[in-house]
């Protein structure tokens, strides 16, 4: 019994960690008023760069950091389109979702002699209790370090958004950029910074997949997690803590669908796999209801236009 529960909890956190990074990236970007549909693309770039750098350098931490950097650089494209060119952010986000996986697979074939999979990294990111544990419960609670990092990032983002002047500025830029502008807040710079951070976090999320959950980059390493993260942003009503909880729910439902005593039951595996998504819709109808985006989310700011 205790083993089962601990397994469920362990898997929940394992599955949700990459999602949490992606979702927090979405929160920070959308809070500043830039819709970010490109999380999937940014996560894929991070997943590839993390695995590739982790493999060639032999150090997973270097891979993780460079993945964040790559995600951030990639997100700059979105910032240029959304902020400088005042482009339709939906379209530019979708574009990143095409370019990101395309670029990742293109580079993967160049780096790994034509294969769409990278070589496995020599060492994964560490676990919190170190190596293998003899006790099953301890083994299940031996989280990846990324689980802890994801929690810390959520706390930090909550603190910054709601307890510091920078957070107030970010939120005001997302709600009413013109008012923020008259108070001397640089709207464009704030949005650039937030999109950049969003990309860095999404990059981390991708790397959390390929350096902690699995050990290499594959074409399906990131397949829809970015969109689930996007859903979690809306589900969590654009708050870090809400998005975090939504990601845990997805992670839990996914853990449930691979839970041994359920997986060996008469229920078809496809029905179990559907579970997280059905559960989400039910929760939405029963408890969450209308979600309201930051007021100026997705609308380019034009100085002097009312």
């Amino acid at each position, binding site marked *: 019994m205790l083993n089962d529960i601990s397994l469920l909890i362990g898997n929940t956190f394992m599955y949700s960690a990459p999602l949490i990074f992606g979702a927090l990236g979405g929160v920070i970007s959308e809070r500043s008023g830039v819709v970010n549909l490109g999380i999937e693309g940014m996560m894929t770039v991070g997943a590839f760069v993390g695995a590739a750098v982790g493999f060639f350098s032999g150090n997973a931490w270097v891979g993780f950091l460079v993945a964040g950097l790559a995600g951030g650089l990639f997100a700059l494209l979105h910032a240029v389109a959304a902020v400088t060119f005042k482009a339709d952010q939906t379209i530019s986000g*979708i*574009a990143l979702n095409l*370019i990101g996986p395309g*670029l990742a*697979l293109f580079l993967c074939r160049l780096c790994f002699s034509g294969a769409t999979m990278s070589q496995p990294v020599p060492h994964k990111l560490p676990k919190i209790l170190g190596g293998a544990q003899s006790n099953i419960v301890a083994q299940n609670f031996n989280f990846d370090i990324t689980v802890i990092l994801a929690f810390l990032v959520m706390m930090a983002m909550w603190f910054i958004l709601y307890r510091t002047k920078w957070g107030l500025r970010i939120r005001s830029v997302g709600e009413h950029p013109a008012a923020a502008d008259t108070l001397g807040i640089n709207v464009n710079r704030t949005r650039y910074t937030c999109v950049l951070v969003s990309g860095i976090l999404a990059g981390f999320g991708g790397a959390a997949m390929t350096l902690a959950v699995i050990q290499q980059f594959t074409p399906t390493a990131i*397949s829809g997690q970015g969109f689930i993260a996007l859903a979690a942003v809306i589900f969590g009503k654009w708050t870090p803590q809400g998005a975090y909880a939504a990601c845990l729910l997805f992670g839990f439902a996914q853990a449930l669908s691979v839970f041994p005593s359920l997986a060996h039951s008469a229920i078809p595996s496809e029905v179990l796999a559907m579970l997280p998504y059905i559960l*989400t819709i039910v929760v939405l109808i029963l408890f969450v209801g209308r*979600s309201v985006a930051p007021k100026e989310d997705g609308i380019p700011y034009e100085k002097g236009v009312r």
Partner: protein
Amino acid sequence: MEKTAKILKKPITSTIIAIVCGFAVAAIVLAVAGYNPGSAFGALFSGIFSRPKYISNVIIKATPITLTALSVAFAYKVGLFNIGAEGQYIVGAVAANIVGYLCNFPPVIEIPLVILAGMVAGALWGGIVGLLKAKFGIHEVLTSIMLNWIAFYFSNLVVNSAAFHQPNSTAAYPVNASSYTMLLPNWKTSDAGMAAMSGTKWLREVMLKTDVNFGFLIAIAAAVFIWMLLYRSRKGYELRAVGLNHDAAEFAGIPVNKNIVITMLIAGALAGLAAALAITGTNPHRISTLSAFENNGFNGLSVAFIAGSSPIGCIFAGLLFGGLLYGGQSIQANIGAPSEIINIMIGTIVFFVALTAVVPKLAVRLEKRGMRNAK
């Protein structure tokens, strides 16, 4: 000056600039990676145009994405982002496959029945999204993403079920031949057909080596229908009003929620139509186990945006996209460059479509300057 401004203001100009930029970026990426962009593009274009059967395959490839693009573009005009076209396509394919396999009527009844099944399933899937938005205010992107995955696993559930799974395969039983929508499917392989076509080589190649079918004609008809609905009907006026400003539409007495549900029903039906035509019109005429999304709906998003959400534009953007997807395969086959270059190129085109929306605005500025100078 005025003439330049006029040309720049046309939406098609921005699109062409975006396409040129897409090719330019792809050329740079290829060159940096050590491939000759010239021979890569040569391979691409000969992979599209050099043989009649290639052109036919491009059109076949363009059919479903033109229709899913139409679905996305239509919803976008009403202010809804239909990221769920993927799921609507999948359930449409499942329904068309099931009905086409279980029923076996003469083609006059069978074909409309199978296509209707696909459309109804797609409409249902889209309708759920519309209903949840109208009734509970749940964001359409959120429900769409969930329903995409539910459709994905539902399709696999059907494929693997005892009733529909064809033994020793990873697929369901195909639909009956009476639901085929290829051009003269029986005649073309008969002796009479062979004899009639023996004189014209290109016709033989197209008819026998590709699944040339009616799908693209139906896609064109659907595009014209959606254009008429949006711009030549009272309903279309209502729908566009909802898309432009919810509150103003509500205030003017237009039932916003009802129109949201109607829009999602139609959008879903279009995606389901895309799937049904793919099942009836192309080999293997059945659904297979999905290991990842096949992107028929997601590609529709890109096509719709390249088309600037114009229903008629979707036809041309669909052909462009189909051409790049199909011709792109020859890049890897002929010069060894990873075929993912096509995804980078398409992505770049979409990216520049977003950027070049600025061009008409610049044109207006240019025009104003011209007028000031004239004074």
